[in-house]
């Protein structure tokens, strides 16, 4: 799991069955000092994050478990909106 900042949205009319209604956001992964770390990625939003929100994400198979239904082809999901980081 890792920190990220929402930097945009992705609109995708035709999606895999099960992903209808899923919000897709562009997220820049951040390190513990909130510095960008690695390339931006597209993640499914499960917590109604907004632009510029600091969030945390989960990757790999666990990202799909955050979705409903959970057997979907997703490898990055936003699972929380961060209020504060003390690091």
């Amino acid at each position, binding site marked *: 799991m890792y920190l990220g900042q929402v930097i945009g949205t992705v609109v995708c009319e035709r999606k895999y069955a099960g992903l209808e209604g899923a919000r897709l956001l562009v997220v820049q992964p951040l390190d513990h000092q909130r510095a960008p770390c690695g390339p931006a990625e597209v993640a499914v939003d499960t917590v109604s994050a907004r632009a510029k929100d600091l969030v945390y994400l989960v990757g790999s198979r666990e990202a799909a478990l955050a979705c409903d239904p959970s057997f979907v082809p997703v490898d990055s999901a936003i699972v*929380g909106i961060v209020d504060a980081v*003390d690091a």
Partner: protein
Amino acid sequence: MNLCKVLGTVVASHKHPAFQALKLLIVQPLDEKQRALGKSFIAVDHTSCAGKGDTVLVMREGNGVRQLLKNPKAPIRSIIVGVVDAVDA
């Protein structure tokens, strides 16, 4: 499992229900000499006693996490399973 150093805490009030009542910590992976190695990441604290500056043992595997938390659908990949007293390597 990896040795990691706890860098600090992450507070999130709006999160996936599987994270309710779980403490989130940012950790930095370490090598066997306890030097920083790779990117920091977020882990859930299952020991409930790890704090900033501690060296901890972190498991990064989703199936193990789901067994520990007894939640077969938890979208969680990394969990702190021990606070390290000493490493002799």
